[in-house]
């Protein structure tokens, strides 16, 4: 195998059809698989790297390790039977699936959700976002050898899972936001215990900032690495913190406010350098926004009132022919459900649009070229992708 050299004549030329002319028998190139099991918490996906020395010349994302055919399964289930399935599409932040699915069904069935349920839904979504960011921070630091950050963020994530458990009865898959409203109100003393958890989140976040973001090694490895060009945002469908780190305040909560976000006071966090460090920093600051939003929601939400709208008998529930698209801003970007109904008791088609679908495929394959092998894990994690929403 040839060692890395700045001599670009070693690198593959392009064939007439635009693909790279890589001759593996030449000894210049080596195939290297990153994943599907990797400590960098990108989940079970793999990148097939072709390297020359220690530089990547081509990367191809391979997914399918978590494919369970959710979209097909839902076509054979009644609308209420789909509800406990959807949360399983994204493990670390399942509530967006519940919200988007429920909102799509409600819109096509003409169901008006009570106001109090809107507030509780927003609370659940922000709690899930905070947990997802905590998982990300641990993964991003872990990809560069800082194992301790993951220990700390997992600790506060666990505290938030306790709050989820007392609110919904479950820690991971909550199955709480169902078509028509939410299952229950807040338990007694929830606000006080949530405030204790939020204080612990803020304290941990301060430690994370000092140990991770002020660390010379972390800065050296991430500043100026893995830059997303501004022109790629539309070409590759980049949304969420990946777009905000490039200086574009794309945030569905502000662009097309849903639930109660128009009544909450917040500004999307943006960065400008669009590298791995900036993306991590945008997410770290976004955790503080989450904390503020949870406090605002708990202070402003109505303390009593109905939680569920009147829905038809779920065993005989038919929805008229129609189609809609519902989106929300999850921790990774735009999450959406495209639902088509045909007048029967089953969805005709459900299509899940997860942000990882574009970030982990064409965007990652574009960004990985010319990267050093040792930076690949950090780049993969910095796009904050979860493969189940690619494969569904």
């Amino acid at each position, binding site marked *: 195998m040839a060692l890395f050299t700045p001599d670009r004549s070693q690198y593959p030329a392009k064939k007439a059809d635009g693909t790279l002319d890589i001759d593996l028998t030449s000894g210049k190139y080596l195939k290297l698989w990153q994943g599907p099991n990797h400590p960098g918490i990108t989940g079970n996906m793999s990148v097939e790297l072709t390297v020359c020395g220690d530089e990547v010349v081509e990367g191809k994302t391979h*997914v399918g390790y978590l494919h369970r055919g959710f*979209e097909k399964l839902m076509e054979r289930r009644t609308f209420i039977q789909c509800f406990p399935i959807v949360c399983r599409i994204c493990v670390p932040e399942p509530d967006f699936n519940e919200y988007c699915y429920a909102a799509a069904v409600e819109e096509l069935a003409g169901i008006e959700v009570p106001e109090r349920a809107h507030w509780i839904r927003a609370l659940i979504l922000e709690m899930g976002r905070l947990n997802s960011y905590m998982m990300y921070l641990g993964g991003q630091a872990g990809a560069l050898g800082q194992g301790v950050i993951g220990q700390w963020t997992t600790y506060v994530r666990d505290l938030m899972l306790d709050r989820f458990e007392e609110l919904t009865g479950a820690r991971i898959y909550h199955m709480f936001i169902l078509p028509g409203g939410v299952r229950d109100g807040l338990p007694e003393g929830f606000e006080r215990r949530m405030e204790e958890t939020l204080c612990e989140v803020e304290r941990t976040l301060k430690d994370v900032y000092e140990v991770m973001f002020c660390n010379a090694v972390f800065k050296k490895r991430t500043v100026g690495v893995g830059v997303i060009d501004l022109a790629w945002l*539309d070409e590759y469908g980049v949304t969420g913190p990946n777009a905000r780190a490039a200086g574009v305040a794309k945030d569905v909560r502000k662009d097309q406010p849903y639930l109660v976000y128009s009544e909450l006071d917040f500004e999307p966090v943006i960065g400008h350098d669009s590298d791995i460090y900036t993306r991590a920093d945008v997410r770290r600051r976004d955790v503080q926004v989450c904390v503020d939003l949870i406090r605002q929601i708990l202070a402003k939400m109505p303390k009593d009132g109905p939680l569920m709208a009147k829905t038809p008998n779920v065993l005989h529930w038919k929805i008229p022919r129609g*189609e*809609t698209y519902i989106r929300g801003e999850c921790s990774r970007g735009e999450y959406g459900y*495209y639902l*088509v109904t045909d007048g029967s008791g089953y969805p005709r088609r459900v299509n899940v649009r997860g942000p990882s679908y574009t970030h982990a495929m064409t965007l990652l394959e574009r960004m990985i070229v010319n990267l050093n092998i040792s930076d690949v894990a950090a780049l993969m994690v910095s796009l904050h992708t979860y493969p189940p929403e690619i494969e569904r």
Partner: protein
Amino acid sequence: MMHALHTRLKALFPLGEFTEQRANLSFVTLPASHLRPTLLHLRDREGFTHLVLLTAVDWLEDGQFQLTYLLSNRAQRCDIGLRVMIGRESATMESIHDIWPTAATYQRELREMFGIDFPGSPRLHEDFILEGWNDIPPYRRDFDTLKYAEESYRQRPGRETHDPATHMKQQLYPDGR
């Protein structure tokens, strides 16, 4: 807002059925041959620069696939879905990967899951999720999931399957009353 956009588009392209789903979301049907100019017009003149998704719906009884191209205009805070109906038999559609490079992934998935061909789309024939699949594309409505599962997988010995209604009746009223 969406009605004004529809009027402007109608002056340029032969549009079909128009559905205003919400104040900021509408769907419009158009012929496959006019998809590319419509997409380019919406992207370059109307500000719909973000391809949200591209997917297919199988209308088996009509013998058609519906391709939905959902575009978003962030400045105007609105979305438009373009519906293109194509025949299910030897389904082929023009690729749009040169307009949005990210469309290549959607098209790869549609070829694998619905059997819709997009000539010229990058890596179209590489496996996306399924490996070594030799049955009909699984997301088509005529793919029988139950039959496939029964033929491909074995029941573990000792497991029984009950009809839920009969089973519960038996449990609650064992003497058959």
